[in-house]
């Protein structure tokens, strides 16, 4: 392979692949929202867009050695440590000091729990409104609705 491309992949894609995935997903959603003519397809695009943001936030909360952000007093964290570490670990436990590198960042998880709830609410309400639009206009295609809304248009 071309060394420039290999270098680019090594330095920009491999350590930051989570951002690449989020940007690609987000652009799929944006494309659907901009170009699709059907309102339901636009909503699907919006859902993909929201999912990309959730993925982005959760992925910045990841830590290399971190587990789930639930403090465990008998979990695998304390068994997997080597001898030297386990002494330090029990020392920490005695003084009730928590090593923050051992736990994933809880703040993005909390914020995204909120975002998921907002996503459900907006999606539900948007589906209700599109049902209402279908009831009034008989179609969910954007250009046909615009045609009917125009003063000279039929209906």
């Amino acid at each position, binding site marked *: 392979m071309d060394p420039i491309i290999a270098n680019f992949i090594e330095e*920009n894609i491999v350590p*930051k692949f989570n951002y690449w995935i989020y940007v690609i997903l987000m*652009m799929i959603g944006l494309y659907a929202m901009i170009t699709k003519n059907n309102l339901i397809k636009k909503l699907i695009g919006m859902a993909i867009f929201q999912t990309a943001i959730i993925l982005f936030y959760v992925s910045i909360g990841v830590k290399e050695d971190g587990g789930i952000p*639930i403090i465990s007093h008998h979990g695998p964290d304390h068994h997997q440590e080597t001898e030297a570490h386990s002494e330090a670990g029990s020392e920490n436990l005695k003084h009730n000091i928590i090593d*923050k590198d051992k736990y994933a960042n*809880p703040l993005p998880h909390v914020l995204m729990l909120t975002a998921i709830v907002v996503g459900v609410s907006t999606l*539900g*309400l948007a589906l*209700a409104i599109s049902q209402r639009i279908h009831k009034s206009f008989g179609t969910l295609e954007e250009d046909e609705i615009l045609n009917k809304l125009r003063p000279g248009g039929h209906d």
Partner: protein
Amino acid sequence: MKVFGLVAVFVVGLLLLSATQDFPSWGNPRSAASDGEVSSFYIEKTEAVTKVPNMVTAVLADFRGYDTMFETVVIFIAGIGIIAVLRNFEGSDSSIDYDNDDNGAGLLARFTCSLILPFIQIFALYVVAHGHHSPGGGFQGGVMLGASYILLALAFGLSKAKRIFSERRTMIFAVVGIFIYVGWGVLCLLLGGEFLNYSVLDSILPGDAMMARSYSMLVVEIGVAFTVTAIMFSMYSNLSTRGRLSKGL
């Protein structure tokens, strides 16, 4: 339009990708988001201050209690909005007539669902009740409980599910959930603390101020679960029948 969209998407995508040059790499524990003062405080002090091992629930229900309270209100407003948009309040259409011929799915599906449903509901209640010690919480458990009623409606027909969990009961559940949450905050006010400052509740709850925060999280999560369960089922039953509630999917 398609070409314009494609160009716009590529430009925005390239801008976003070029911005990732400055972002921390995957899993870096020293990144600004993970090494900041706030996150470190939550990780290191949550258990010492609240006796709750699940940091996510502790941050959600205690440290950021206002956020979660209005989150519950957002769900409630969405549920009300769906009913307001879909239901035709004028004319003869407004009366809700339950369709008794609606028998739901076939025999096998109904039998299987009647076997599974109690376990789904018990697991949902466990997720709510144990949410501050293990993964879970009010939103997650509430969605599971709501999904169990949706399964009931799919298997046995919406009319049967509506006889168990009627429209009126759904709305009462949703309001009661918000009242539990807000009322718990007002109770803190009455006992001399700030709104949603649970530590002043130690005079009426067993244990010290830290245990009072732990118990309060459970109460608040139960309130959230009430609202989420009711609104999930309300959303399904209204969206699947165009607001008529007469015959489901």
